């Protein structure tokens, strides 16, 4: 037991060190920029730092609920990217998979044959299928035509964005607001009464679905032969081929699973009762790119993604509340980028910790 705890400490400590260094960097930026900014007083700086630390807890339960709701999509895109990383693929295309999944969900929820719970479940499944198919293109090109998955994913992001715009305009379009028409309230995701615990927030069943998805991916990767095969292909395609693993098929399957997760993320965003809409603007969905940060911060561990997703949302909400002290919310992304940057040093930190330990003995 004691060994397990030291092992856990050893695994988590380097991440905590990178988070600490990143936050330190952020505090320096906040203090220095505040001192140079004539519109900010020292009190502003102090309360700004407070808001940052409080994050999701700034407004008590309502902001906590908002935090859980906002964490849902980035946990899922984070799991998508992390899963792909573990199988040797860089899924920079979560953005496109998210968007096509989101559209599929909205379309089915509005036009599906079973208004109510039937439609939302059907919508979620369609979103996962759409995301999986979108990612399958990348997997097929990689496996059979040797096309680098980074470039094909980037292309598929843009193609997905424009196609969804076209599809929205021709099917479920609100001309006045330049966005999709709202999903009927009966076909939105159940809130499970959570909104009475977390008033004024949109938290619903989605958060639990995201957590369950992360756990399933963790089990798949670490406890099943199939997961082992997928990881083996990522580690050494030639060796796994020699061991009798169908590596081409596995690349396609890995991409499809990653795509399904990103598609699910899109579904849960747009099926929420809070009323999110796909807007017709030429901007790639940010959830996909945040997913990369989430996955990297968790060292591509699916269970770790739950915590890194919550942590990033905690920072983001902190940044939101810091606007009251005239801070641009982008300061949070600066901190986050510093944390991710330092997380790249994790190998170095590990050696550092081990040396310290060795020295004591």
């Amino acid at each position, binding site marked *: 037991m004691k060994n397990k705890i030291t092992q856990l400490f050893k695994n988590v400590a380097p991440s905590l060190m990178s988070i600490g260094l990143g936050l330190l960097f952020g505090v320096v930026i906040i203090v220095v920029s505040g001192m140079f900014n004539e519109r900010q007083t020292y009190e502003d700086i102090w309360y700004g730092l407070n808001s940052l630390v409080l994050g999701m807890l700034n407004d008590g339960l309502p902001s906590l609920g908002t935090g859980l709701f906002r964490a849902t999509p980035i946990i899922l895109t984070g799991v998508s990217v992390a899963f792909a990383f573990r199988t040797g693929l860089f899924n920079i295309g979560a953005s496109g998979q998210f968007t096509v999944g989101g559209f599929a969900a909205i379309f089915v929820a509005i036009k599906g044959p079973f208004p109510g719970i039937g439609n939302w479940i059907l919508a979620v499944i369609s979103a996962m299928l759409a995301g999986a198919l979108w990612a399958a293109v990348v997997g097929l090109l990689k496996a059979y035509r040797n096309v680098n998955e980074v470039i094909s994913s*980037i292309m598929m992001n843009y193609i997905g964005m*424009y*196609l969804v715009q*076209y599809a929205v305009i021709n099917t479920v379009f609100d001309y006045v607001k330049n966005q999709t028409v709202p999903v009927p309230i009966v076909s939105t995701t159940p809130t499970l009464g959570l909104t009475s615990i977390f008033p004024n927030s949109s938290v619903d069943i989605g958060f639990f679905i995201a957590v369950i998805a992360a756990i399933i991916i963790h089990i798949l990767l670490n406890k099943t032969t199939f997961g082992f095969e997928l990881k083996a292909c990522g580690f050494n395609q030639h060796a796994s081929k020699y061991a009798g693993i169908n590596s081409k098929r596995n690349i396609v399957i890995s991409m499809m699973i990653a795509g399904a997760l990103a598609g699910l993320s899109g579904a849960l965003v747009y099926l929420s009762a809070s009323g999110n809409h796909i807007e017709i603007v030429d901007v790639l969905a940010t959830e996909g790119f945040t997913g990369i940060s989430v996955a990297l911060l968790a060292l591509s561990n699916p269970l770790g993604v739950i915590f890194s997703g919550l942590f990033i949302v905690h920072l983001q909400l902190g940044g939101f509340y810091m606007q009251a002290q005239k801070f641009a919310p982008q300061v949070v992304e600066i901190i986050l980028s510093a944390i991710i940057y330092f997380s790249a040093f994790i190998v170095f930190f590990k050696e550092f910790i081990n040396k310290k330990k060795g020295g004591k003995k």
Partner: protein
Amino acid sequence: MMNIIYFNFQQMMYFTIPLLIVALAGMYSERSGVVNIALDGKMVVGGFVGAMFVFLMKNTLSVPMLLLGGLFFAALGGLLISLVHAYASITMKADQTISGTAINLFSVAFAIFAARTIKVTQQVEFNTNFLIREVPVLSKIPVIGDLFFKNTFFTTFLGFAILIVSIFVLYKTKFGLRLRACGEFPQAADSVGINVAKVRYIAVMISGILAGIGGFTFVVTTSNSFNGDVGGYGFLAIAVLIFGQWKPMRILFAAIFFGLMKTLSNTYATIPFLVSLQLPTIAYKIIPFLATLVLLAMISKNSVAPKALGEIFDKGKR
């Protein structure tokens, strides 16, 4: 008829040149073995610093000086941010993708944060027009004058200059040979006395300088303001780099292809033949990306990235 061709060619250059410069920036880094997913971030830094320079100095300097100053500071900004990437990926032997992602995230946030701290709003606008209507003498040359020396930017010539110098450096100099060796087989390079870390540092720094210049070029040729990002052009430049097989001339063709497709999606209404096809606008927006995918599927079978790309150099490894 000729006017339509000239017009579209000139328009195409506005998109092609930034892509060319930034893809070449990526080439230096990746041919030395360092993955450069941070091109977008470096472009943003270059675009922001350059635009900020023009914004702050527009009343004191002449137009050519503004452009040169902007280019200089854009290059400097790109250089500084590339050192951050080099330190992580070479000295600290860190994962290059992680460092690159962090820089992409940092750059956009920093550009907006700094703009809002300096001048309250995040948009950095300048009304200075850098367009050169006609280059004296040269614009009188038939055809070529119309294609290259009318409605152009100084950066267009800079872009071609960078291309020619890059070909020379990569294939005709000792440094170029060493750079390629570090990207293919760093252990072998090390065994003959090449300082792999130093070569990679220089490569990443060149990459930063060029990406910064490319970022400012993008801002100057496509708009007259900077608003926190470069429209994902850094990622398109990565696509151009891979599409161009990490080779300068192929990168040029890839950049022209992209620039042309991008231009047609904006100007197809001026071309009678395309209007007669009656395709929806969406088709022209998708075609550049779809065509790239199809082309890649056809040519990638034998494509080879630099062999040691993304590999951390470890002297002990054989």
